[in-house]
C-alpha cells in the first residue's frame, strides 16, 4: 500500500511460533497415572491398598511357584531338595512332571506295541519280537514287567505323542472339524468332515471294528434319505415319521413284541459279514478305562454338540401354540432345571436301569453323556427362549405374511436373529457344561479331580494338594477362557447394527 509512510505497527511476527510441549503432567505415563490411579484422594488410597494386596499375594505365591522343584520322585524327596536349597517354601512341581500323562488321560492304555517298535526295538528283539511279547508268547506278568520297564526308559513327551496317538489324533481332527463351524472364512467343504467327525472320533477313541461306525453312519444316512424321499411325497410330518421308522428298523428291534425278530435289526448282521470279509480295526478300549482331562473333553464336546439342537427344539416347543407340546416342554425344562446335576448323575448311575427294558445294559459313560446333554439342553432352551422373546412380533408377522410355513419361518427368519441375541447365554451354558463335567467323579468316572485323589493315594505323593489343583484348574481355565473370548469375537462379528 503505502511505501513512504512508516508502518504504525511496531512489530509483526511473520513466522509461526513452534508449538510448546504440553505440560509434563498432561502427557504419557504421568497423565495416565494421574487419571487412572490417583485422580482423587479416595482413588489414591484405593491404589495404595491394591498395590499392597498385589504385593502381599505375589510375595507369597511367586517364591513358592518359581522356586518349585521340578525333578523328584516323591514328596519327601521334594522337601529334602527344598531344605537343601535353604528355601522356606517351594512348590513340588515334580508331581506334575511325573504324573501329567495320568491327569490328562487317566488309565487309558498306551499303544505299547508302537512304543516298543519305535523306541525299544533292541529290547523287543531280545524279548523275542512283537508277537512273542504282545501276542501270547509272554504271560501277563512278564508283559506288564516288559511294558513298565520300557515306559520307565521312555521320555514322557514321547509317550504322550506316540503312546496316546489315538486320543491326540482325535483331538487334532476335532480342531479341524470345529474350525469351519467357528470361522466362516474357511471353505464350506470342510463341513462334510465335521459331519463325519463323530464317527471318526468314536473309532479312534474306542477302537474295535472299523465297520461299526461306518455302518452306523450309513444307516443314519439311509434313514435320512428315506425320510426325505417320503417327506417330498407326504410333507414334513410324514417324512419325519418315516425317517424315525426307518431308523428304528435299522438300529433297533421295534417289533420284538409281535414276535418279528428275523429281519431286524439289520446292523449286527451286516457287521458280522463285513468283519469276516475285511477285519480292520483298532484295539477295543472299554469306556471304564477312559479318564482324565480327555474324559472332560469327550463329555463336554458331546454334550455341547448334542444339547444345542435339543435345546433349540425345546425352546420352540415352549413357545409353541399347541398346548400339549408346550406343556410337555415346560414340564421337561422345569423338572430338569429344578434339580441339581449331581442328582441327575446319580439317577443315571442308580436308576436308569429301572426305566430301560429288562436286560438292557448301558455304558456308564454313555449314560452320563445323555444326562449331561439333557441337563444342558434345558438350560439352553431357556436361553434361546429369551432370544425368541426378544424379537419384535413384527418379525413373526412378516414371516407369516411372506407365506412361509412354520419351519421355514423359524429357520430363515426367527432363529438366525434369536440365536444371535442369545450367543452370550449359549456360550455361558457351554462353559457351565464343560465345568460340570468334573462332577462325574462322584459316580465313579475318573475325571481329572478324581485322578488327583488317585495320585495322592500313592505312597510317593501322599499329602500333595496345591500343585495338582492348580494344574487341573489351569487346564479348565484355558478351555473356558477360550470359549468366552470366542463368544465375544462372535458377537462382534455378527453385530449388524452399525452403532
Amino acid at each position: 500500500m503505502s511505501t513512504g509512510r512508516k508502518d504504525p505497527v511496531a512489530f509483526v511476527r511473520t513466522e509461526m511460533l513452534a508449538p510448546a510441549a504440553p505440560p509434563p503432567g498432561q502427557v504419557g505415563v504421568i497423565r495416565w497415572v494421574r487419571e487412572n490411579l490417583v485422580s482423587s484422594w479416595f482413588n489414591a488410597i484405593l491404589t495404595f491398598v491394591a498395590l499392597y494386596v498385589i504385593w502381599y499375594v505375589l510375595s507369597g505365591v511367586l517364591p513358592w511357584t518359581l522356586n518349585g522343584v521340578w525333578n523328584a520322585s516323591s514328596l519327601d524327596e521334594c522337601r529334602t531338595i527344598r531344605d537343601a536349597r535353604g528355601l522356606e517354601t517351594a512348590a513340588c512341581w515334580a508331581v506334575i512332571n511325573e504324573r501329567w500323562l495320568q491327569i490328562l488321560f487317566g488309565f487309558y492304555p498306551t499303544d505299547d506295541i508302537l512304543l516298543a517298535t519305535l523306541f525299544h526295538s533292541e529290547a523287543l528283539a531280545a524279548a523275542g519280537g512283537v508277537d512273542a511279547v504282545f501276542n501270547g508268547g509272554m504271560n501277563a506278568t512278564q508283559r506288564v514287567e516288559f511294558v513298565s520297564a520300557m515306559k520307565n526308559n521312555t521320555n514322557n513327551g514321547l509317550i504322550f505323542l506316540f503312546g496316546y496317538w489315538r486320543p491326540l489324533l482325535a483331538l487334532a481332527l476335532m480342531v479341524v472339524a470345529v474350525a469351519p463351524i467357528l470361522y466362516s472364512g474357511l471353505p464350506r467343504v470342510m463341513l462334510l468332515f465335521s459331519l463325519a467327525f463323530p464317527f471318526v472320533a468314536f473309532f479312534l477313541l474306542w477302537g474295535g471294528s472299523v465297520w461299526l461306525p461306518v455302518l452306523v453312519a450309513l444307516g443314519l444316512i439311509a434313514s435320512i434319505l428315506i425320510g426325505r424321499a417320503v417327506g417330498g411325497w407326504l410333507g414334513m410330518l410324514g417324512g419325519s415319521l418315516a425317517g424315525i421308522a426307518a431308523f428304528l428298523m435299522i438300529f433297533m428291534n421295534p417289533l420284538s413284541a409281535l414276535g418279528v425278530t428275523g429281519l431286524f435289526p439289520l446292523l449286527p448282521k451286516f457287521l458280522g459279514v463285513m468283519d469276516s470279509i475285511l477285519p480292520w480295526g483298532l484295539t477295543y478300549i472299554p469306556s471304564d478305562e477312559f479318564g482324565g482331562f480327555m474324559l472332560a473333553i469327550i463329555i463336554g464336546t458331546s454334550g455341547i454338540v448334542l444339547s444345542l439342537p435339543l435345546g433349540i427344539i425345546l425352546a420352540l416347543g415352549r413357545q409353541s401354540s399347541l398346548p400339549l407340546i408346550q406343556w410337555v416342554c415346560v414340564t421337561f425344562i422345569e423338572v430338569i432345571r429344578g434339580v441339581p446335576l449331581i442328582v441327575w448323575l446319580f439317577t443315571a448311575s442308580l436308576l436308569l436301569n429301572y426305566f430301560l427294558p429288562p436286560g438292557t445294559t448301558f455304558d456308564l459313560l454313555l449314560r452320563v453323556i445323555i444326562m449331561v446333554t439333557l441337563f444342558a439342553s434345558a438350560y439352553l432352551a431357556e436361553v434361546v427362549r429369551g432370544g425368541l422373546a426378544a424379537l419384535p412380533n413384527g418379525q413373526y408377522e412378516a414371516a407369516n405374511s411372506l407365506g412361509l410355513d412354520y419351519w421355514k419361518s423359524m429357520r430363515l427368519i426367527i432363529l438366525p436373529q434369536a440365536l444371535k441375541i442369545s450367543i452370550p447365554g449359549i456360550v455361558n451354558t457351554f462353559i457351565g457344561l464343560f465345568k460340570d463335567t468334573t462332577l462325574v467323579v462322584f459316580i465313579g468316572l475318573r475325571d481329572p479331580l478324581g485322578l488327583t485323589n488317585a495320585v495322592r493315594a500313592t505312597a510317593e505323593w501322599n499329602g500333595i494338594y496345591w500343585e495338582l489343583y492348580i494344574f487341573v484348574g489351569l487346564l479348565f481355565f484355558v478351555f473356558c477362557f477360550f470359549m468366552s473370548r470366542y463368544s465375544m469375537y462372535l458377537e462382534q462379528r455378527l453385530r449388524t447394527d452399525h452403532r
Partner: protein
Amino acid sequence: MAEATDPPRETFRLSQLLYDARYRSMTIQVVAAILIMLLLVELVDNTVTNLAALGKDIRFGFLWSTAGYDINQQLIPFSSQDTHARAALVGILNTLVVAVLGCILATVIGVLAGVLRLSKNWLIAKIMTFYVEAMRNTPLLIWILIVFAVMTEATPQPREFREGGSASMILWDSVAISNRGVYIPRPIWAEGSGFVVAVFILSIIGIFVVRHIARKRQQDTGQILPVFRISLALFFLPTLLAYFLMGRPVTLEMPELGGFNFTGGLQIRNSFIALWLALSLYTSAFIAEIVRSGILAISKGQTEAAFALGIQPNRTMQLIILPQALRVIIPPLISQYLNLTKNSSLAIAVGYMDVRSTLGGITINQTGRELEGMLLLGIFYLITSLIISAAMNFYNSSVKLKER
C-alpha cells in the same frame, strides 16, 4: 343373468387333517399325545418289571424306620435312634442354611466386586477382572476342594493354641481357626432373653414401617426423611436398651482349649466353611458380572437428566439409577441364588451332611430304596427352585414397565 351359485359346501376330507392349518394342530397333538402315552406306559412297565425281577416294591415306609447313623451337623436335635425322615429333615436344614448364608455372602462380595470392576481406578478394575475371570472359568468343585484343603492343611492344630504354641486366637481371644474347624463364641440364652429377641424383631418390623411411611410421604409431599439414620437407630437402640434393662440376659460362652481340643463355644466344621466360602466366592463372580451389566445398562442420559433437574448425586443414585438398574439386576440375581442352592449339593465333595448325603446318600445305601429316595430328593429340590422362581416371577411382574 347369471345364476347365483351357492358357496362351495364345507365338506371334510381326511387329507385336511394333514394339510389344513385348522385341523393340523389337532393331528399333531393327538399323535404327540399317543407317543407320549406310549413312552410313559413303556417306562412304567419297564420299572414295574425290573422292580419285580429284583423283588422290590415302591414304598415309603422306610422313612419311619430307625436311621441308625449320626449326622455331624444338626440344627435340630438328632440321634442315630431317630427316623430316616428326621435325618432327611436335618439334611434339608443343613442344605438351606448353607444356601441362605451363601446367598448373603455371595451378594455382598458380588456387589462389591461388580462395582469395583467399574472403578475408575485402573489397578482395582484389573484386579477385579482377574478375580471374576478366574472364578468363572474354573469348576466350582476345584474351589471347594481348594478351600477345604486350606482349612484342613494350612490351619494350625488345636494343640498349637496352647501356651507357647505357634497359633493364637483372633478377635480378642474369641475365635479360633484350627484344622478341626472354626470355634466361635456360643450365645447363652438366659431368663429374659426372649424379650430382647422380641424387641429386636419388632424394631426390624419398625424399620420397614418407617421406610414405607417415608416413601409415601415423599410421593405425597416431596419431603424426604432421613430414612437411613432412622433405620440405623431403630436397628440398634431399642435392642440395646432392652438388653441392659433385662440385666444382660444373653452372654457368650467362649471356646477354650481343654485337653487336645477346644471345649465350649460353637464349632463350625471345616466342611461347612469350605462349602460356604467356595459357593459364595464362585457365585459372587457371576453376581459381579450381573451387577456390572445392570449398572452399564442404564444409559448415561439418565444421570445427566437427573443432574439437569438439579438432583444431587447420591439422590440421583437412589431415586433414578438404582430403581432402574435393580430391574435389570434382580431376575438374574435370583437365578444365581437358585444355582447356588442347587450347587450346594456338591457338599458330597467335603462330606458336609446336606440333604443329598442324608436322604440321597446314607439312607439309600442303608435301605436300598434308590427309587423312592431319589424321587423324594428330586421333589425337594424341585419345590425349592419352584418357590424361588415363583418369587422371581412375582418380582418381575411387580417391576415390569407398564406399557400401553
